[in-house]
């Protein structure tokens, strides 16, 4: 197998399917599958630290920033913990266009904006969250401007400013693995440091998950640090999650498909800028359909026009058909190729030159699919909100941004730049709501028995004598899930087949993951989260027997408005098994109208 440039997804899939997963292991680096644990952990070397706050914000992206600031300003004692660095982890560092709805400047009213988004989303959006995002965007952007957000392509300084001014404690490089519930409500969270053999227990009255989205550590999208951690740990304590059947359809370049930076041209080096109202129906799975039907190279002039020569495929509302050159959220491989071979030795635009349309039309070279495999449309997946306050069904647990299944944009990309704006707006809302909640409740203690269990679960991969390497299990999972004919162009028999393999990984590999250091421990927990996410994705996709927005079933190619004007909520049943149920569009989980 050639490095990177080429893929053998189909063969790999069949390889895995035939149980000869070893066939995957050709290439320059042979990933070590099962082996002895070289450096087993000595339990006595593990340190522990207990910390306390009213509101614990997990995640240091756009949502986490505003959650912490606003909870603090509402009077709560706040703490931020993130597995990466503030403003330099998750997806936030790579997003360069932020939407504002400025009523003075826009020709459309707020109502018209919301209606237009709803039309493009074919009912899949939650109009309350759509409106909330637009309504508050101007105020959030003004704050960002004050902090210097628009002055640099790198966000750490701007994010550090308000956090520093408020003396909000910030703990970086600590991965949270567990939410802790006592007596039916949130009591805190727990996780571990990647730098030291150290476990953290956070006691908190409320927790705001700002953990972003995730994927299967795909190649071509800078989301390899995100594995839906928040969603899975919330699911584990009984929260409802949603949106797993939807897909982000970003494609990449065939040449060096894994090079995110190169694929996005100079975008990562730009300073952020603003976008205004411009509603689309974009970046679903049209390209995947064309590739499925006609093979590669995909004969298209861009997303939105993909169906030009191909019959059938994902439905696109008439008013959002494309004619001219596409304007869309930029994507890897779609931006003009920069000449330097990725050493960054070039002069990027310094000013707030807004990457509104992602540069020149796509297809400068051959494409490959699945750049963002495992990720749904931003804000369509995540915790189910029970109201417009970003609150989950677990008392004290809030979520914001990509970690909240708010359906702000619907199950398709409708407004460029609204993802970043939505994270900012929801972060602020959740921060205030969580501060209010924690002022009303008493702190609950974390019981010794729970501590023991959590400690054991966190450290388990370090203590195994032998086991599967997380990297190998991840790659096997990728081979099962990422092929176009599994995750994108869906049909029942293949999804059932894939589910069987995923269940095998869940039951037989997940309990046998090994880790020889804290870095690998993080990989082990991430791998577990990806396996559960894969199960959710397949089950939700099997359940949704229709096609709509970014979910496409080859065996149910039409929209089914009779049965499927509904979102799918996933939760852990009494017996510990995964349960799925519908929640009609336009309602909250309790059945009340939006």
């Amino acid at each position, binding site marked *: 197998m050639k490095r990177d440039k080429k893929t053998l997804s189909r063969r790999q899939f069949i390889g895995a399917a035939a149980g000869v997963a070893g066939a995957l292991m050709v290439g320059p680096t042979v990933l070590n599958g099962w082996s002895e644990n070289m450096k087993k952990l000595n339990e006595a070397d593990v340190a522990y630290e207990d910390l306390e706050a009213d509101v614990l914000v997990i995640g240091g992206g756009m949502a986490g920033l505003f959650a912490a600031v606003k909870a603090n300003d509402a009077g709560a004692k706040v703490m931020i913990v993130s597995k990466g660095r503030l403003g330099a982890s998750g997806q936030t560092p790579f997003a360069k266009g932020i939407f504002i709805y400025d009523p003075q400047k826009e020709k459309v009213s707020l109502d018209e904006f919301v209606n237009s988004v709803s039309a493009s989303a074919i009912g899949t959006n939650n109009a309350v969250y759509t409106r909330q995002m637009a309504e508050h965007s101007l105020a959030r952007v003004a704050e960002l401007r004050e902090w210097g957000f628009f002055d640099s392509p790198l966000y750490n300084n701007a994010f550090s400013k308000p956090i520093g001014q408020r003396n909000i404690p910030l703990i970086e490089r600590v991965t949270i693995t567990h939410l802790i519930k006592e007596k039916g409500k949130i009591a805190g969270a727990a996780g571990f440091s990647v730098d030291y053999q150290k476990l953290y227990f956070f006691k908190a009255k409320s927790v705001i998950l700002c953990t972003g989205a995730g994927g299967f550590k795909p190649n071509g999208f800078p989301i390899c640090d995100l594995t839906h951690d928040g969603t899975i740990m919330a699911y584990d304590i009984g929260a409802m999650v949603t949106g797993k059947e939807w897909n982000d359809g970003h494609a990449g370049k065939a040449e060096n498909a*894994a090079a995110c930076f190169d694929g996005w041209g100079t975008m990562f080096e730009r300073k952020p800028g603003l976008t205004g109202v411009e509603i689309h129906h974009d970046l679903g799975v049209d390209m995947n359909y064309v590739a499925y039907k006609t093979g590669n190279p995909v004969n298209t002039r861009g997303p939105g026009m993909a169906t030009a020569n191909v019959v059938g495929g994902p439905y696109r509302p008439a008013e959002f058909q494309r004619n001219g050159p596409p304007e869309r959220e930029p994507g890897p491989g779609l931006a003009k190729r920069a000449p330097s071979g990725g050493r960054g030795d070039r002069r990027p635009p310094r000013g707030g030159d807004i990457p509104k349309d992602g540069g020149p039309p796509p297809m400068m070279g051959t494409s490959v699919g699945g750049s963002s*495999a495992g990720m749904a449309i931003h804000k369509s997946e995540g915790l189910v909100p029970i109201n417009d306050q970003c609150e989950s069904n677990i008392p004290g647990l809030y979520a914001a941004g990509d970690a909240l299944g708010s359906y702000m944009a619907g199950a398709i990309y409708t407004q460029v730049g609204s993802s970043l704006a939505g994270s900012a707006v929801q972060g602020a809302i959740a921060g205030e709501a969580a501060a209010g909640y924690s002022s009303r409740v008493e702190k609950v203690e974390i019981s010794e028995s729970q501590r023991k269990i959590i400690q054991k679960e966190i450290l388990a991969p370090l203590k195994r004598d032998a086991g599967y390497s997380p990297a190998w299990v991840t790659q096997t999972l990728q081979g099962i899930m990422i092929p176009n004919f599994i995750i994108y162009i869906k049909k029942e028999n293949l999804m059932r087949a894939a589910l069987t393999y995923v269940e095998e990984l869940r039951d037989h590999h997940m309990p046998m993951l090994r880790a020889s250091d804290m870095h690998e421990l993080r990989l082990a927990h991430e791998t577990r989260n990806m396996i559960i996410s894969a199960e959710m994705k397949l089950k939700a996709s099997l359940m949704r027997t229709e096609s709509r927005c970014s979910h496409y079933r080859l065996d149910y190619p039409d929209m089914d408005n009779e049965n499927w004007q509904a979102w799918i909520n996933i939760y852990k049943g009494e017996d510990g098994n995964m349960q799925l149920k519908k929640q009609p569009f336009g309602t909250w989980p309790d059945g009340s109208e939006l």
Partner: protein
Amino acid sequence: MSIENINGCIGCGTCVATCPTDVIRLNKQTKKAEIKYPADCQICHLCRMYCPVDAITISPEKSIPVIVSWG
């Protein structure tokens, strides 16, 4: 292969903190950054952009096989 080289490093630790996928670590003896887990590099260049002395070189190739949806 992804992140390739670190030359002229002053050991400030910025890249270690910055890398979202925890690829780089500081060597306590040499006081220099080391590429510890290259297979996990997502080729995002954040480390390079944050490095005060531009010590990091990154190439667009990935060292482990890349799995995509269609080839």
